[in-house]
């Protein structure tokens, strides 16, 4: 059964009480008196009594209802306050979480920076390793080559010694008494032995393996040795020597200096397609020695100039 709303309930109770009061009080009056005058006077008291009773009734009904309402309202207010507090509390908590997240984010960000920096360092180290490896490989190669050429040079030097000693002896023995052909034969032997000696000497110097940078390097001799070695490749190329007459002597590593000059010469030769020339100038000025090698070859692109000292850098196709 649905509960009646307060205003209907109060009106209903009022109606019932009113009717009951009127019926019962009239019956009561009629039972105690028959005198109309007395009844009329009693009617007045009955009216006052009615007002009093209904006033009391209304008062209690209203009081009960209002008390209930007030307590609900109080409860509501308390809830509202609680809610506000709760919201504030939760907001503060959320702020904290956000702050934490922000910090974590920052940390992650700086971590990722660290990682990328470490990565860069690793790459650099890797590059360095590669270069060192290639240098070691190159040095190892030159060391083996050095041992080989030194051995070969020594073995060839003895037979060269026989030939030179023999031809010198013959020249002395014959003196000026030699016909044209004998002179040609002797000259051929001497030229041959001298050229072979120059090649062996050059090879020996080029492949010399030493850690010292305090060796005496005769720049003109270095250039000549290197030219002797690449002699065969110079058929189609003219060489213009402009070597300092006083000679240029520096301290350094004889073997490595030869390799540098040889590499530049080979590069110059390869840059010349068909015919051309290579000019070599040695000199010294203001306490500095210089070797200038220029060629009529294809040259190096301006944009590639910075890269010429990079290990492995080449514009040649792979293979």
């Amino acid at each position, binding site marked *: 059964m649905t509960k009646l709303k307060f205003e209907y309930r109060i009106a209903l109770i009022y109606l019932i009480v009113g009717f009951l009061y009127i019926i019962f009080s009239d019956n009561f009056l009629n039972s105690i008196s028959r005198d109309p005058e007395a009844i009329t006077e009693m009617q007045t008291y009955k009216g006052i009594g009615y007002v009093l009773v209904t006033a009391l009734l209304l008062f209690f009904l209203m009081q009960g209802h209002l008390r209930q309402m007030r307590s609900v309202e109080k409860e509501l207010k308390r809830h509202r306050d609680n809610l506000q507090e709760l919201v504030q509390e939760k907001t503060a908590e959320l702020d904290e979480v956000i702050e934490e997240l922000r910090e974590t984010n920052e940390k992650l960000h700086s971590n990722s920076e660290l990682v990328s920096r470490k990565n860069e360092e690793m790459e650099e180290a890797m590059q360095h390793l590669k270069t060192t490896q290639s240098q070691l490989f190159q040095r190892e190669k030159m060391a083996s080559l050095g041992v080989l050429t*030194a051995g070969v*040079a*020594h*073995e*060839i*030097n*003895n037979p*060269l*010694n*026989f*030939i*030179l*000693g*023999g031809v*010198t*002896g013959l020249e*002395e023995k014959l003196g000026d008494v030699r016909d044209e052909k004998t002179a040609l034969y002797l000259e051929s032997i001497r030229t041959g*032995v001298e050229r072979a*000696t120059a090649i062996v*000497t050059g090879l*020996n*110097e080029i492949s*010399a393996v030493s850690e010292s940078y305090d060796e005496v390097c005769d720049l003109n001799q270095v250039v000549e040795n290197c030219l002797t070695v690449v002699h065969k490749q110079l058929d189609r190329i003219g060489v213009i020597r402009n070597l300092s007459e006083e000679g240029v002597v520096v301290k350094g590593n004889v073997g490595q200096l030869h390799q540098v000059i040889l590499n530049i010469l080979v590069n110059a030769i390869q840059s010349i397609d068909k015919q051309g020339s290579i000019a070599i100038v040695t000199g010294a000025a203001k306490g500095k020695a210089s070797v200038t090698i220029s060629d009529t070859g294809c040259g190096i692109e301006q944009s590639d100039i910075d890269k010429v000292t990079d290990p492995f850098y080449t514009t040649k196709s792979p293979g």
Partner: protein
Amino acid sequence: MMLKVLYVDDERINLMLFSAHLDKKYNVLTADSGADGLVILKQHSGIRVVVSDMKMPQMNGIEFIKKASEIAPDTVFYILTGFEITPEIQQALDEGLIRKYFRKPFNIKEISAEIDIGLDINE
């Protein structure tokens, strides 16, 4: 009397050529090993100059000259080598054990001239 010069080399032809070229000027003695060279140094007094090959079996040129200089301290020593100058030769030069080193194939005129200079300085 001709000056006595000892030449040590393990190559027989080198010994013969050296003698053939210089025997008019010097009294050339030859040995085909360091050990043999030491024996000759002990047998002959007055050997003023010793020229030795560097690379020989058993005893190399510098090892031979070290021992030889004890037997004949007033003698002038030279090394002949088919190699580039080695640290061992450089050290011998620095210490004054040898006066100079010659390269193979050797130039007889250069050696002869150097021997004459070396002896002048020594006297």
